[in-house]
Structures are given as structure tokens and as C-alpha cells.
């Protein structure tokens, strides 16, 4: 293993490859900040640039782009509540309230530190456990995936305020409903499209995220101008420093988020989104009752947990890609395409046949994390100046970037009208105090949930015994029941 790390260091530590990591991180951050352009788009846009490179150099640049785009997405989530990709939705829960309370610099710095720590811990875990985890991830079957997703959905109560658990569950059901709109790919039939061609491909995640978060927030700024008064952000470099107490507060959170994120990221199909939601839920569940009300209102722990988890999950998703040749997420699928375009076939033989690529990707991922921190920390006060734009200008600009983010994907005017309609419904629901995050979680997991349930039910010939027959699914079932019953139990105990 030590030899492998040395091979990786030897490949990466050339001036040319270090420049590629730097270029990748910078390009990824800038592209990732634009709503609608996440890591997949960023990598896809940069692949043609790398065609003339050596495979190792190409992968080094793309790994930098990957991490840069994730951090860029977190930046737009924190500053304008516009999570351009699913993996940074949970970042907005506490990042945006922090930015609104004048601590944009601290929020961005916390995100950078948590991402760095998450990436570092995950890189160590990747080196140590990659071959073993490849076998474990293969032992997960449809029933286990189904239960993992049900557990993720049942943790929605973590996003709800005390006594609002039913509202959170209601919104999850609404998200699941929206996920069934469009063509059912396994049967090839249309569902809830009402004959409209525009709905055949279903509702896009980006449209829903932009409508329910960015557009809704912009409209709320106008509807309740006094209540969402922006405090002047502290943009000094000193504001980026964290106190000893703050570091002690988020250190255990980052460790937990990183380990959880890494292991969830290893599972093909799970990825950064589930990891960030699970980490947030776990952190809220573990929080002391006096700290818990701060979640969703600007808690540093609430920001550090999803940020460390989504970065660690990105690293974890390289395990199935590099060891099995199975892409664990959309982004790693694009990276797989890039590797094949370079003439490299990932799989169990990659480790033996082309160790310099295997190890240089791992080492460059770590260097990408270091460079991202060094590059972005000094830039944070300048990035955060975005919040000083006066509201009459900021609100239409947020609306424009959100609408464009969706339009640029489909080039369909119908999507804009649909988005405006969804934003109107979301404003109504927010006024009735229904949380938006469970809606998105239900929507994201709906498709995967149905696919895995279909497979599990078909394999067990219609029986539901798969829920408790396998130890993994049984464990997840028990955890789900605990997550669903514990809020009710707590409510009952507090009354007696």
C-alpha cells in the first residue's frame, strides 16, 4: 500500500499535474456556483479539454473539478439558498440562516473546513478499506437498498421542529407523489402526465429544488420584508477564524459525518445526497435538547454534518468505480466514461494493471482537497460580498439565475411556467409552516425506492418477507421503526 501511495505521489507531484489540480478546482468552483451546473455538468464540460492528456493527468484534473463543483454548489446554497445539486440541499438548512444573520464568511469557512476534513478522513478510509468495501457493497441487495431508503425517508422527522413531525411526513408523501409523474421506465407507461408531452420525462430535480428553495425564498423576501431583514455580513478575514469552542463543537460532528458519508458513498446509487441528509438527521438526533432548536436556524453543527458527509461520500463513490468499474453516482458514471475514453477499463484489474492511475486518482483527490481549502479561504470574503447587493437587485437576480439554471438544461419554456407554479404552491405551504426539505428528499428517493421495491417484490414472488429475512434489511427495518416511533414516544413521555 505504501508503494502505491508513493507511486501516486510521484505522479501527482509534478508541476504540470499540480497545475491541473489547481485549474480543476478553480474551474469546478466557478461552474458549480452557477445554479443548474453541478459536478456532472462541470466534469462533462471539462472532459473535452483533457482528451490530449495522459489518463492519470486527465483524471487528476477531473477530480479537482469534482471537488471544486461540490464546494461551488455549497457556496450558492449558503449565500442565496439555491442548491444547484441534490448533494448540497442539506447544506442550505443551516448555511443560509447563518448567512442571513451576518455570518456568511463563517458559514463558508465552516463549509470549507468541514469539506476538507471530510475529504481527508475519507481519503484515509479509501486507502485502507477500498478492496474490502468493494466486497461489502456487492453484498447489498435490492431489499437492503429499499430499506436504506425507507430509513432515509423516515429520518425526515429530523428536519421537523418539535411537534411538526406529521407535517414533515406529509411533505415526504408529496415528494414521493411528484416522483411518480412521467414515464415508468420499467413498464414503459405514462403516469400522471395528463397527455402533456412536457411531462413525459417527469419533473426535474433541479426545477423542484430551485422552485421550492431559491424562488420561494426570493418571494418570501418580498412577502415578509421585515422578517427576513438581512444583517450586514462581516467580510473581514478575521470573521473566517473559528474559536476553540466552535472547533470543539464541530469536530465530533465532522468525524461522524465523514465516516457515515464515506460508507454511504461506497454503496452504488446512494451517494452524496443520502449521505448529507442522513448525517444531518443523525446530528440533530444526537444533539442535546438545548442545542436542538438551533438546527435549521443557523447551527454550525447542522452545517458541518452535511458538508463533511457529502465530501466524504464523493470520495467513497470512487471505491466501486475504481475497484469494480461500477459507477456509484451520476458523476462517477461520467468519470467512468472519461476513463474509457482514455482507453482505461476500470475494474478489479485496474489496481494491478495500471496502479499509477489508481493511486494517482486517490492522491490527487487529497491534493484537490488541500488546494480547494488554500484557494477558497482567501476568496471567501469576496464571494460573500454577493449578499451586500441591495434587495431590489438581489431578488430579481436570484430569480433570473434560478430560472436560467432550469431553462439551460431543457431549453423548454414550459419548465419556467411549471417552476413558477411550483414556487407559488411552495410559498403557500411555507406560510402554513410545512417544511420543504422532506419534499425534496421524497422526490429524490422516490424513483430509486420504487426500482428497488419492484426488484425485491418480484424476486420474492410478491411476498414481503424480504423485509426481515436478511440481516441487513432487518437491521435497517428496526432502525426505521425507532426513527418513526421515537418522536411520538418523546412527545408522550414529555406529557407524562
Amino acid at each position: 500500500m505504501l508503494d502505491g501511495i508513493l507511486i501516486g505521489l510521484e505522479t501527482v507531484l509534478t508541476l504540470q499535474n499540480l497545475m491541473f489540480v489547481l485549474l480543476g478546482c478553480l474551474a469546478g468552483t466557478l461552474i458549480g456556483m452557477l445554479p443548474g451546473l453541478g459536478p456532472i455538468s462541470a466534469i462533462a464540460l471539462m472532459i473535452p479539454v483533457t482528451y490530449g492528456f495522459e489518463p492519470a493527468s486527465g483524471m487528476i484534473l477531473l477530480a479537482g473539478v469534482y471537488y471544486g463543483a461540490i464546494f461551488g454548489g455549497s457556496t450558492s446554497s449558503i449565500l442565496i439558498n439555491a442548491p444547484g445539486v441534490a448533494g448540497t440541499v442539506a447544506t442550505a438548512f443551516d448555511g443560509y440562516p447563518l448567512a442571513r444573520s451576518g455570518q456568511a464568511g463563517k458559514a463558508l469557512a465552516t463549509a470549507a473546513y468541514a469539506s476538507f476534513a471530510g475529504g481527508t478522513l475519507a481519503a484515509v478510509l479509501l486507502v485502507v478499506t477500498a478492496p474490502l468495501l468493494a466486497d461489502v457493497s456487492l453484498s447489498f441487495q435490492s431489499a437492503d437498498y429499499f430499506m436504506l431508503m425507507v430509513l432515509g425517508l423516515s429520518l425526515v422527522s429530523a428536519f421537523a421542529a418539535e411537534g411538526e413531525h406529521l407535517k414533515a411526513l406529509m411533505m415526504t408523501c408529496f415528494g414521493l407523489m411528484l416522483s411518480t409523474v412521467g414515464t415508468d421506465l420499467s413498464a414503459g407507461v405514462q403516469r400522471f402526465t395528463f397527455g402533456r408531452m412536457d411531462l413525459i420525462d417527469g419533473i426535474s430535480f433541479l426545477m423542484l429544488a430551485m422552485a421550492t428553495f431559491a424562488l420561494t425564498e426570493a418571494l418570501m423576501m418580498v412577502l415578509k420584508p421585515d422578517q427576513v431583514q438581512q444583517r450586514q455580513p462581516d467580510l473581514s478575514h478575521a470573521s473566517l477564524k473559528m474559536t476553540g469552542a466552535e472547533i470543539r463543537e464541530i469536530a465530533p460532528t465532522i468525524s461522524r459525518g465523514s465516516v457515515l458519508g464515506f460508507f454511504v458513498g461506497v454503496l452504488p446509487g446512494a451517494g452524496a445526497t443520502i449521505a448529507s441528509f442522513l448525517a444531518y438527521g443523525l446530528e440533530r438526533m444526537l444533539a442535546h435538547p438545548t442545542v436542538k432548536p438551533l438546527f435549521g436556524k443557523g447551527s454550525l453543527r447542522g452545517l458541518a454534518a452535511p458538508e463533511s458527509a457529502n465530501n466524504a461520500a464523493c470520495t467513497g463513490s470512487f471505491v466501486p468505480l475504481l475497484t469494480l468499474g461500477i459507477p456509484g453516482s451520476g458523476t462517477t458514471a461520467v468519470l467512468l466514461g472519461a476513463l474509457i475514453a482514455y482507453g482505461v477499463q476500470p475494474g478489479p484489474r485496474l489496481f494491478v494493471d495500471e496502479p499509477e492511475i489508481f493511486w494517482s486518482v486517490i492522491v490527487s483527490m487529497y491534493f484537490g482537497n488541500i488546494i480547494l481549502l488554500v484557494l477558497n479561504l482567501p476568496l471567501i470574503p469576496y464571494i460573500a460580498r454577493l449578499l451586500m447587493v441591495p434587495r431590489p437587485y438581489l431578488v430579481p437576480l436570484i430569480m433570473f439565475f434560478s430560472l436560467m439554471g432550469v431553462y439551460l438544461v431543457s431549453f423548454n419554456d414550459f419548465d419556467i411556467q411549471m417552476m413558477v407554479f411550483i414556487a407559488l404552491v411552495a410559498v403557500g405551504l411555507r406560510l402554513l409552516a410545512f417544511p420543504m426539505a422532506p419534499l425534496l428528499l421524497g422526490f429524490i428517493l422516490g424513483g430509486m425506492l420504487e426500482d428497488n421495491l419492484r426488484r425485491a417484490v418480484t424476486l420474492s414472488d410478491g411476498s414481503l418477507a424480504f423485509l426481515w429475512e436478511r440481516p441487513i434489511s432487518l437491521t435497517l427495518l428496526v432502525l426505521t421503526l425507532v426513527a418513526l416511533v421515537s418522536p411520538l414516544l418523546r412527545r408522550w413521555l414529555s406529557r407524562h
Partner: protein
Amino acid sequence: MSSRIGGMMFLVLGLTYGWFIADIPLDFFSEQEPFNARSMPWGIAAATVVVALLLIVFPAKQEAGIPWKALNWKPALLLVLAMSGYGLTLEYLGFIGATALFLVVGILILGERRYWQIGCIAISVAVGFYFLMKGLGIYLEPGELWSALGNHAHA
């Protein structure tokens, strides 16, 4: 109160959703399968109705009322119309024209009256974003109006 209003709305939504499940076409073989295109929607409809009923029966405690009259409805609704209008004008006016117009209207709705500054910002954002997208290889339509004026778009 908001729990009950929301619960009623979702109950109606869940029942309507359940009603339209019957419209999902199934062939003979699919109908015999243990899991088909209607199975998941049935589960979701049932869960929605159950949770909505629970929400009506056990509403959240200590809910703050909604200050309907204190809300700034007029500019918010005008902005909604402006966004919808932006979608409608994109094809005709093209990206730069429709974007600049949307930004000018949006900023005016929110009370800004420095016309020269508004025009400069709107045009620079629209033109700047157009060239940024062009640099990234994303083509944005110049619009029917541009073509009608005798110009031809180059993809």
C-alpha cells in the same frame, strides 16, 4: 389551524391522486405481476390519506397564525407575473432581450427608480451571461424578433 388547513388540502390531493391511478394503462401481463406501474402510486396515495387524516385529527401544537394582511402581496404577485412573462417572451425576444426586460421590470417592481443604473445592470447581466454561456459552449437563441429583423442565427 395551519395543520388542519394543510391536512384538508393534502387529503383532497391524496384522493385526487388515487383517483387518477386508474388512468395508468396496464396490459394483461402487467396486471398479473405482483408489482406493476400502479403499485407504488397506490402505496403513496394510501400513505398520504393516512398522514393527512392524522394531521387533521392531531394538529401541531402552539401554531402561530398567518398574518395574511401584513404580507406584501402586490409586489410578490407582480414578480410571479414577471417570471411567467419571462418564460413567454424568451422565444420571441431572445435571451438577451427577454432577460434585460425581466430584470428591468423586476427591479422596478421592488421600488428602485434610478433608471440609468437599472438599464446598465440589466443589460450587462444579460450580455455577460450570454457570453459566459457561449464560452462554455452553450448556445442561447437570439429570438424570433432578431430573425424577423433580417438577421440569421448561427449555431
